[in-house]
């Protein structure tokens, strides 16, 4: 197995790990971190697959995608964090309360 695929698989592994954490943890901060881990996993896959042939220079397009993705992830995390603070101020809890069964 080439190094490229090892990194790609690692990325998928991170993605799955993040998904697992997102599902099992109730604490909002952990959920937000889990989403970030998943995002990192996807970025790793993108960068790894961009390497492709070791002799040729790597494809720049996935790198551009990753940079854009990071920008998106940072802003999403910022929004998530402020929302988490607001939730904990409003409800006094740091996890989601189940109010859908109205």
């Amino acid at each position, binding site marked *: 197995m080439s190094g490229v695929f090892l990194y790609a698989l690692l990325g998928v592994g991170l993605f799955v790990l993040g998904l697992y954490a997102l599902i099992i943890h109730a604490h909002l901060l952990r959920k937000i971190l889990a*989403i970030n881990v998943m995002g990192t*996993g*996807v970025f790793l*896959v993108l960068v790894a*697959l961009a390497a492709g042939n070791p002799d040729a220079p790597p494809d720049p397009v*996935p790198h551009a995608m990753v940079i854009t993705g990071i920008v998106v992830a940072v*802003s999403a995390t910022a929004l998530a964090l402020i929302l988490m603070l607001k939730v904990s101020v409003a409800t006094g809890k740091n996890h989601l309360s189940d109010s859908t069964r*109205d």
Partner: protein
Amino acid sequence: MTGDIVGIPWIVVLIVLPLTGGMACFLFPTISKSLGLIFALAIFTAVVGLGWQLVEQGAQRYAIGGWGASLGIDLYADGLSLLMLVTAALVGLGVSVYSGAYFSREKAKHFWPLWLLLWAALNALFLSADIFNLYVTLELLGLAAVALIALADGADALNSAMRYLLVSLLGSLFYLLGVALLYHSFGSLDIAILAQRMEPTPAVWSAVGLMSAGLLLKTALFPMHFWLPAAHACAPAPVSALLSALVVKASFYILLRLWLEVFALTDTSLGQLLGLLGATAVLWGGIQALRQTRLKLLIAYSTVAQLGYLFLAFPLGTNIAWKGACYMLLSHAIAKAAMFMAAGNILRFCGHDRIADLDRIAQRLPLTLTAFALAGVSIMGLPPSGGFIGKWLLLEASMSAGQWWWAVILILGGLLAAAYFFRVIGYAFTRAGLTHEVGVVPARMEWAALVLALAAILLGFISPAALELMGIGTPFGGERAG
């Protein structure tokens, strides 16, 4: 003169306008109401301009900065994009008029920039010809939507905004992983190029699975609808209208676009699976709506059911089925927006939205109730509304394809819709005594809801022209496929 109008690159204008508007409203919060309305009108005009251009010149492609596909980002507009842009413009204009009276000065300062940014994200999404650009617009859309939900005060709204944000990010990441796989397989992000190079390899199948899962989560197809009712019911009325009418439709649009052009997977078991989930959504959403005691939750569950209809086109896969689903999408968007606005009026008037206590709304808020009723006619799919046209086309497609069971689902869904909808109307006619303080509903809010609801009915009368516009650039394959 005609040449000038056709010569303007409306595609770009449509993205730049709402973006500029959002910035302007952010910078000049004191006049944001007027600014917002002016920009809404301008965007509406630009959509008309693009429509004209498409009629004159056919489908349009625009390379930003002249880079061209594979490295640059292309924008593309055909009948399907136009349909979505028109939907957004009609609902957007209605919501803009309504919101001018709905929000307090303090809230309006936040609402207008966010709403115009959301509009920019929507327009950009409908015009992207590139699967990564679709990801970016999808994220922008999600972030703006979450912020808008959080505009409503209270723990419920914040909770559902948070849940919505997590779901939205999760869905986008699934989609992005799929994009990575597709790019790796075919070395391009452009939808048209991908369509040419498509081969059914395992990597592609994984990509299809990941992207579909992410998009279905965002579209709230049963059983991934769990986040929708709370989010749509807790948000302020105009935001609920936007979410139900437009935001869920955006991810559906991506799925439809990919399915039609890239995946080209009709007649497979995945199509049948989507149809089955859609059918379950129709029934489940309808039954849940029937069980609700609060008006806004009822309307939100109705959205779950109505989204199910859209997926009934996937197992059929014929030209007429796609057009039916698209007509359904358009008329649902307009009718549901009108319905949420009417619910907002009722909420403001009564101070609550308990269905059993909607005493004498019929006498005291006649315009709002009329709006609600007319929107309901379209949601139920009764003639001569836009909803009826969509339902008829889907029925016709399923009967011609010999798959009559989808027709039965459509009919049952209509019956359930009638049941939950008339439950509300029935209480509105009763004569209970006054038990609460009565709020004042500005006429502008009543009329905005009514005009949108009338538009949903009028859609029933313009279907020949509308279907022809939808077909520009043959997004649904040739006529013979129908």
